[in-house]
């Protein structure tokens, strides 16, 4: 579903953040992206949802060239992608429920429908009773889960999650992984950038390691030892 051909990304006045990356990710894969701080994980994700454009190389998403999209095309692309950011990016003036429902309303879901769906997702992520709170009234981990709920509300084909468990305790992290796994069953592709070695070992069906912008390792689990 996703193909990268010799992708290089150099930020202005900086050494390259990604160097000549080529890889292919199939539909329904659960990919972990690891590597030390500054390795280029976030950069890779940003290229996929066209927050940044590659300096060189091509990226195909569902056989569509991501590097050649206009503004309208970028919006259409993003509606099929669920995003979880390292910094959450929640709107402080909206309630938790509205924050999650927003993503659905933007693509044309009615208010009522979106609220019902957001409600269900939030409950699943253990945020019962926080629907009407504003994001700034939540703990770090709670905010992170709201961000995850928002990423999932449109049943995206692809979920890009950047350090989605960085602020979660081990139990909550497991819970979140389980939600991801459930998504995967419906055919969603998941790409998760993370430092959490334990989670990676337990859940990743494919582990891509970056270092200083280069692809240093790409392991795929053959015997399905998926944890429950």
């Amino acid at each position, binding site marked *: 579903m996703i193909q990268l051909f010799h992708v290089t990304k150099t930020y202005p006045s900086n050494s390259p953040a990604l160097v000549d990356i080529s890889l292919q990710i199939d539909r329904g894969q659960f990919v972990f992206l690891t590597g030390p701080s500054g390795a280029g994980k976030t950069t890779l994700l940003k290229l996929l949802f066209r927050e940044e454009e590659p300096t060189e190389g091509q990226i195909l998403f569902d056989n569509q060239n991501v590097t050649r999209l206009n503004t309208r095309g970028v919006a*259409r692309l993003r509606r099929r992608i669920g995003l979880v950011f390292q910094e959450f*990016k929640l709107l402080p003036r909206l309630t938790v429920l509205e924050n999650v429902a927003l993503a659905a309303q933007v693509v044309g879901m009615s208010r009522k429908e979106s609220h019902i769906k957001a409600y269900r997702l939030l409950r699943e992520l253990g945020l019962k009773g926080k629907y009407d709170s504003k994001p700034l009234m939540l703990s770090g981990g709670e905010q992170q889960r709201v961000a995850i709920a928002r990423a999932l509300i449109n049943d995206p084909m692809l979920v890009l999650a950047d350090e989605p468990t960085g602020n979660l305790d081990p139990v909550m992290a497991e819970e979140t992984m389980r939600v991801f796994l459930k998504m995967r069953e419906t055919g969603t592709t998941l790409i998760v950038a993370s430092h959490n070695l334990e989670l990676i070992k337990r859940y990743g069906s494919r582990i891509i390691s970056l270092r200083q912008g280069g692809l240093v390792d790409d392991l795929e689990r053959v015997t399905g030892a998926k944890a429950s």
Partner: protein
Amino acid sequence: MKWSQLAFVGRRVRHSLWELLWNHVLTSGTMAMSLFVFGVFILLQENLQHLLKGWGDQVQINAYLDTNVASNEAQSILERIQSLPEVEHVRHISKEQAWRDFQTALGAQSAVLEGLPVDVLPASFEIAVKVPSRSGPLVEELASRLEKIEGIAAVEYPQEWVERLSLIVLAVQWAKWVLGGILFVATFFIVGSTVRLALLARKEEIEIMQLVGASEELIQAPFVLEGMLQGTIGGGLSLLGLWLFYLFLQQHFFLAFPLFGSMIQIRFLDPHSIALLLVIGLLLGGMGSLFSLRRFLRTWRG
């Protein structure tokens, strides 16, 4: 845009009006301020033009008759003048009429006329000139022709006024465009900057909308609608201010220039200008938002 998305835009606008009430009040206030100043100039211009029109009517030539002209002779001279193509109409001022007019004009000082014979002033014709001929050289030419008519002793006309008239018309037209243009740009600039500041305060909102895949129109629509609303309200406020200013001017102008009260009758904006101000407010608000928004979206990461 789907119906559900229209409803979404509506909700966002309502939400923003409520949550950022203060910002909206500010933007409307700033626009009101700008449009007020703009409106003051329109008011000035309209009144000047009205004044000019009034004065145009006063481009008249006074032709004094010889003292010994009989009234039937005067009548034939009048008809002859009337038939000239440049002449709008002619009024005959008899000696008695002239005396009475003079008395009125002197007002308090009329006491000095006591003891003078009533027919000391000559009879005359007041000749109003048609619009196309109300320019310096043409009036001059007409006056010299009138002077040659038998029975007419002297011809007088406000030459300076006629010359000034065309000068003022020109100046006001220029001022209108130059000052109007400057003010329009200044207003647009200020509104744009206000909107830009408001955008800066709401940048996460825009960013997140972009990230969840909202279309450009969906992101921009609430801002543009708000801008239009603010602009229209700002226009309304400026009209209110102008009305108060008008009342103030009216009172004080009359008091200040009591003798010319009827001459410089101040008028409020005509409906056309009122509509103009509201439409400019609406457009300024909408366009200001749109422009700032687009530039903001473009230079976003800068």
